[in-house]
């Protein structure tokens, strides 16, 4: 019972902040709501018993990536001329249609997903280590090794790309 209350409270906060992120006029405030959102997501992870994931969520997303967002938002001149707000190429109807389609897909997935329980790819018994962090590590370096390496390569490419873009002379 208590768990359910906690879950729904946290979920409500997550959704509320997510709405604030997209509706707030001031971009910096919007980024701050995003941070709060991430913190509540981390709380959700704690509830699921995934402390490692929760801590990493705070460390990487709230403490690292959003700081960079803030940098960009603070330093880039976001005051656009008023005519920029009336984009003649804006296709709001198309956007609405796409959003509706996504919502529909989600609804179908949810409706059908409840019918059969999701089976874990790797049975818990196959992991020879105990402990939250150890299990994550084991999975990353066994079954998910290739995705893990691809993701790290992707990050490396992004990093080099950012340097090339930003550096005035190399």
């Amino acid at each position, binding site marked *: 019972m208590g768990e359910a209350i906690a879950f729904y409270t946290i979920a409500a906060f997550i959704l509320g902040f997510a709405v604030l992120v997209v509706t707030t006029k001031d971009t910096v405030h919007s980024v701050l709501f995003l941070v709060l959102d991430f913190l509540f997501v981390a709380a959700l992870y704690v509830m699921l018993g995934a402390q490692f994931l929760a801590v990493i969520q705070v460390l990487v997303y709230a403490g690292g990536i959003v700081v960079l967002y803030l940098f960009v938002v603070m330093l880039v001149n976001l005051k656009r001329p008023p005519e920029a707000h009336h984009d003649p190429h804006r296709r709001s109807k198309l956007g609405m249609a796409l959003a509706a389609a996504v919502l529909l897909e989600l609804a179908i997935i949810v409706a059908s997903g409840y019918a059969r329980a999701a089976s874990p790819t790797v049975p818990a018994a196959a992991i020879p280590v105990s402990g939250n962090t150890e299990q994550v590590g084991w999975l990353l370096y066994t079954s998910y090794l290739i995705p893990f390496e691809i993701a790290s390569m992707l990050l490396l490419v992004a990093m080099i790309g950012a340097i090339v873009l*930003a550096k*005035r002379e190399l």
Partner: protein
Amino acid sequence: MTTLQPQTVHGAMFDTNELVINMGPQHPSTHGVLRVVLRLDGEKVVDADVVMGYLHRGIEKLSENRNWTQIILLTDRMDYVAAATSNVGYCETVEKLLQLEVPRRARYIRTILCELQRIASHCLWVGTHAMDIGAMTVFLYAFRERELILDLFEEFCGARLTYNSMRIGGLPQDIPPGWDKKVLEFCKIMDGKLDEYETLLTHNRIWLERTKGVGVIGGPEATALGMCGPTLRGSGVARDVRKDEPYAAYDEMEFDVPIGTAGDTYDRYLVRMEEFRQSLRIIRQATEGLPEGPIVGKVPRLIKPPAGETYHAIESPKGELGYFIVADGKSTNPYRFRVRPPSFCNLQALPRLVRGHLVADVVALIGSIDIVLGEVDR
């Protein structure tokens, strides 16, 4: 009102905007009321504009309406950390106009006072310069020793900052009994304390990184810019008024003029640190060889130099302190009184020195050229 406006920097991919910031007139490290307007690209200084005059009291104009003796007091208020040096410079200029012979004892005491003053001024410089770069302990150490000099001056003339310690033709009074012993005692203390400062700074790696290669200026360029004193000598120009155009008793003293090689902040620092030692050397010689005799020359009752003009320079702790005085021979005040302020001329180099460096270097460079705003603005 300033001429500096932020501009857009065009990069390969992005355009960025410059930032114009005001350093001063209320800022902890502009040594008073200097205002530096900086145009920054990120943290890099693109251009700098120096705005001053916040301490302008019109000393030149004031002096044209005071009689010759009253002006001594005004000269105190220019370089207020080296008031005695300004007094000496002014009195000697007037003596030159009057063609007055100053007794040898008075010249010796003037030399001692000038050099004590140089040490006091350099103490303030090393303290604030180190403080600007973040080494705050040196500041208090240097002030501890400056205090001893102020005590010596207090004993000599009763004042601790603005001494009014000279008279045209000599000194207001002889040195108190035992004063010369105390001066020698001070020299002994100072020797050890100098090593203490150098332990904290000279070979400190952070200090080296912060000062080496910062604000490099070559000898010819520095000369053309009118830089003077230790700031010019740091660039390798052996220009010292004490040696080149001796005044007071410097022609009888034995001392070296330290010069730098690289012309950066570190060399200017080394030059000044060596000047401490040379000053102590001069003080020792002058105190030990102090001649007996009168302390005031044959000064006329009414000081009224004949019509004419002259320029006389002395070496203040900051550099060449010149007085250009025009007497009209009719009134008892100077027709034109002009000071060539060393700080002003050194400060002129600041925009040239800071260009291309970072904000943190700006404060290091302001400290390195050692300005006193009282003298810049007069």
